[in-house]
């Protein structure tokens, strides 16, 4: 199976929701990956739509959470609604 591609599998569980990563399958081609993913991840109507993506096509941020990649957003509290204090009279904004 070493010459088969590893595909990551994403399932949309209900109409209106986004696709969510559920796991991976090996397959000779994309069509087979879809069929394998259906058998493996949606045996009990867990999904209405499936995506399969070759794992090597995914670019990921570095693994450790100490990584400074996400730092730039940590000090920007003014991006959150809770930063802005409103007078009690207009509290329901």
């Amino acid at each position, binding site marked *: 199976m070493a010459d088969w591609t590893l595909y990551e599998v994403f399932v949309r569980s209900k109409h209106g929701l986004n696709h969510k990563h559920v*796991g*991976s*399958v090996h397959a000779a*081609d994309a069509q087979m990956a879809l069929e394998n993913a259906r*058998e493996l991840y949606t*045996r009990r109507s867990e999904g209405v739509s499936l995506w399969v993506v070759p794992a090597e096509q995914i670019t990921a941020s570095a*693994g*450790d959470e100490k990584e400074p990649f996400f730092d730039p957003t940590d000090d920007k509290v003014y991006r959150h609604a809770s930063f802005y204090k409103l007078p009690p009279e207009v509290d329901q904004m």
Partner: protein
Amino acid sequence: MYAQQVDTGAKRLKNLEEMSPEERHFQEKVDAEVRIEPKNWMPEGYRKTLIRQISQHAHSEIVGMLPEGNWLTRAPTLKRKLQLMAKIQDEAGHGLYLYSAMETLGADRDEEIEKLHRGEVKFSSIFTYPTLTWADMGAIGWLVDGAAIVNQVPLQRCSYGPYARAMIRVCKEESFHQRQGYEILLTMMREGTDEQKAMVQDAINRFWWPSLMMFGPSDANSPNSAQSMAWKIKRHGNDELRQRFLDQTVPQLEFLGCTAPDPDLKWNEETGHYDFGEIQWQEFFDVLKGHSPCGVERIQQRKSAIDEGQWVRDAAVAYARKQKQKAKSAA
């Protein structure tokens, strides 16, 4: 347990002061219940232990299809046949979730399967026993899957993210397995002939002790177990899980109207648990060493499944290559 006697390479536990900065950071994360993910730094021993445990677990799911497959063509009704087929397909699925989790640790699936076929790694002792009657399908679903659930529920909180997530999926599906097994036995006891009822008791007699052995020998003094606990791969001792399984199973046994092959089994008012007789561990160790009724046969069946399926995999690859070329020349 589906993974038994997993070696961690540890002789004793290191304390935080003895650890390297990386190890200490890792252990503090584990202690704080932060899940470890594939790309995070981890001690080599942790990685190896997980590969050993998850591969053994995966192999057990796959080999576990064989004793049940034995009864597919002889299921008493179409309904039972469909149910059994669905259960067996689930076991294949569980094996695949687990192999995927194992691969995130850098292990190669083909290589790990080769190791199983060469006899270098084990599958669970429980699947080396033969399935002699239809009642065995009930006993396996009820007792074996029941014991597996008790073991796998805490694994849903295992420190390694991919393993824990695979266990969540597995546990959801196992409860169907256990219920369908119990229902098989219940139906035989309620509607069956005397002969069929005797069959149920016989199946319980044969699977009772092996199910209790699934949890492995007492690990109260085992350095491997202490290390697995410190890494939060393991959450409870073998004896504790065995007792939990027994306490929930005995009332179900009584409701069936059957007995356990254990004259020492009785409720202990003081401890609030069932007492039980001594387990014959020699049988367990013999089975792990390969002296078992069906151990050799199971591996041979797995090997021939891989060998005889080679042409299918070759055809799939050839087809994929051809389709790719077609698409290229059409473009």
